[in-house]
C-alpha cells in the first residue's frame, strides 16, 4: 500500500529529527561534563571527547576559591529557592481556597484582578521595588527575594483550577459540621488534597527562583549573600582568559547539576505537571 510506505518514511524522518534535536540538547552538556574533568593544561591543547582525571581537583579548586564563594552561593540559593517554594505554594493555595470556597462581595473583583496581572512582567516595577527595598532596609539581604513570592498570580491560578476539579465543597461543609475551624479545615483537610498540585508548583517555583538573575543582581551587593546566578555573572565579568578553565567549567557544572538531578528523578511528574492545571480544569 502506498500510504503504508509513506507512513514508514515519515516514521524514519521523525526519528531522525528527534535524534538530531536530542543531540543538540545533550551535546553541550556532554562537553561541559567532559571539560569539567580536565585540567587547565589539557583544555588548552584542544577538545577531547574523553573525560580526564581532574574532576576532584577542579571541584576542590571551586570550593576553595575565595573570589567566587560557590559553596556559600549554593547555600544562599537553596535558602532563597526553598523558602520561596514553600511560602509561594502555601499562600497560593490559601488564596485560591479563599476565592474558591467562600462567597463575599469583592470575590469577583479580586479574581478578575489576579487574572489581569497573570502575565505581568516583574521587570516593569523593578525600579520602584529597588527603592522600596532600600527604604525598608532590606537592601543586600535575602528577604526581598523570598517574601514577594507570596503573591504569584500564575501559581494561584493553577491552584484555583486544581481546587475546582478536585476539591468538593461538600467536604468543607462536612468539616464544619464536625466543628472544625476554618484555618484547621484548610491546613488539615484541604492541604492534603492539594498535595499533587503543591508538589508540582513547588518544583517549578524552586527552579524559577534558583535560576532567577535579574532581581537578585539588583538587590544583592555583598559576596557572602550572592546567589549562584550572580556568581556566574561575576565569573563572566572577570578577566576570564587568565583563569583556570577547568575550574570555570566546574563552576557552571555546580550551578546546573542540582537542578538536572532533581529533574531526572522527578521528570515524569514535572512533564505531566507542565499541563496538569489545564487538563484537569
Amino acid at each position, binding site marked *: 500500500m502506498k500510504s503504508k510506505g509513506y507512513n514508514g518514511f515519515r516514521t524514519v524522518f521523525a526519528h531522525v529529527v528527534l535524534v538530531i534535536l536530542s543531540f543538540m540538547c545533550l551535546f553541550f552538556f556532554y562537553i561541559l561534563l567532559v571539560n569539567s574533568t580536565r585540567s587547565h593544561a589539557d583544555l588548552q591543547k584542544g577538545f577531547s571527547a574523553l573525560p580526564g582525571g581532574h574532576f576532584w581537583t577542579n571541584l576542590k579548586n571551586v570550593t576553595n576559591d575565595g573570589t567566587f564563594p560557590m559553596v556559600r552561593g549554593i547555600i544562599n540559593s537553596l535558602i532563597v529557592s526553598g523558602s520561596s517554594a514553600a511560602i509561594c505554594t502555601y499562600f497560593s493555595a490559601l488564596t485560591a481556597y479563599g476565592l474558591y470556597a467562600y462567597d*463575599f462581595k469583592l470575590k469577583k473583583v479580586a479574581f478578575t484582578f489576579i487574572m489581569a496581572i497573570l502575565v505581568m512582567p516583574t521587570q516593569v516595577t523593578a525600579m520602584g521595588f529597588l527603592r522600596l527595598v532600600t527604604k525598608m532596609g532590606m537592601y543586600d539581604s535575602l528577604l526581598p527575594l523570598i517574601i514577594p513570592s507570596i503573591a504569584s498570580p500564575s501559581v494561584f491560578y493553577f491552584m484555583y483550577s486544581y481546587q475546582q476539579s478536585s476539591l468538593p465543597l461538600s467536604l468543607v461543609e462536612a468539616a464544619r459540621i464536625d466543628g472544625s475551624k476554618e484555618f484547621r479545615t484548610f491546613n488539615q483537610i484541604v492541604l492534603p488534597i492539594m498535595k499533587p498540585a503543591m508538589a508540582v508548583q513547588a518544583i517549578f517555583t524552586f527552579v524559577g527562583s534558583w535560576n532567577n538573575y535579574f532581581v537578585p543582581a539588583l538587590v544583592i551587593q555583598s559576596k557572602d549573600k550572592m546567589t549562584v546566578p550572580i556568581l556566574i555573572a561575576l565569573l563572566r565579568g572577570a578577566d576570564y582568559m587568565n583563569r583556570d578553565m577547568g575550574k570555570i567549567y566546574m563552576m557552571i557544572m555546580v550551578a546546573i547539576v542540582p537542578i538536572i538531578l532533581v529533574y531526572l528523578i522527578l521528570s515524569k511528574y514535572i512533564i505531566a505537571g507542565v499541563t496538569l*492545571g489545564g487538563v484537569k480544569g
Partner: protein
Amino acid sequence: MKQKSKKINYSKWGYIFILPFFACFFIFSLIPLIDTIRYSFYEYFRSGLKEIGPNFIGMANYVSLLKSDMLKYAGNTLVLWLIGFVPQIVISLLLASWFVDARLKIRGQQFFKVVIYLPNLIMASAFAMLFFTLFSNKGPINSILLSLGITDNPIDFMGTVFGTRTLVGVMNFLMWFGNTTIMLMAAIMGISPDIFEASEIDGCNSMQRFFRITLPLIRPILAYTLITSIIGGLQMFDVPQILTNGQGSPDRTSMTLIMFLNNHLKSKNYGMAGALSVYLFIVSGILCFIVYRITNDDDPDGSKAASKKNKKMGRR
C-alpha cells in the same frame, strides 16, 4: 450560595485568606509601580557622588528616551526573539503532531520528551556562560571545527552581529521548544478523536489533517503561545547579558530593552529607568489584556484550551 442561608457568615474568612496575597502584592508590586510611574516624570539621577533631583520635568524623560537608542534596542529585542521563536514554533508543532500521531509509532517518546524539556530548567545565566566558553575563540567548538578541517582559522562567533544574535536565538530556541511541544501536544490531544476518525474516512491525508483540522482547532492555544512568548521575549535579559557581559556587543546590536533598563538602574538614573519601565508597562499591559481575553473566552473550547497554556507563564 449555601452559606448565606445559614446563620454563620463565613465571608470574613474569604477576606482573611486572600489578605496575604493582596497585602504582598500591594507592598511589593503596586507601590513600586506607582513609585516608578511617579519618578518617570522627574529628573532624578546620580552624577558621581552627587544626587541630582528629583525635579519635576514632565514628559522630558519620555521624549529623550525616544531620541536615544531605545528604539534600536526594541528592534534588537524583536530580532533576537524572532530568531528563537520562529524555529521554536515550527519544530514544536511538528514534534507535537508526531508525538500524538499513533500511526507514526514513535519509539522512546518518554525519553525524547525528557531530553527536549531539559534545557528549559537550566539556569539561563549558566547556560549563557557555557555557550560563551564553548564558542570562544579558543573554545571546544572552534577546536572541533579546526580538527575536522571545516575552518582553517578559529571563527570569532561573538565578534560578529550575526554570530552573537544567532547564539542568543539558538539558546532561546533550545530552552523553550520542549516546553512549547508539550503544551501543544496537550492541546492536540484535547481535540476529539472523532474528528480525526471522520477525516480519515473522508480520505484526508496527514498534510490535510494537519493544516485543515489540527491547526485551526488549536488556534486559541497558538495565539496564547505567541502572546506569552512575546511577553517572555520582552523580558529577555539573562542570556544576552551574560553572553556579552552586559555590553550587548558587538556595537550594542544585542542589547535588549531590559538590559538597557538594567544599565539605568545600576547607574541609579531613576528618572530614565522610570520612563523606560512605563513604556514596557504599557506594552505588556496590552499583551496582558489579550491574554486575559483568551483565558476568559466564553467559547468553551477556547477557554479550556487556553487554561492549559496558563501554566507556561509560571516559569517565565
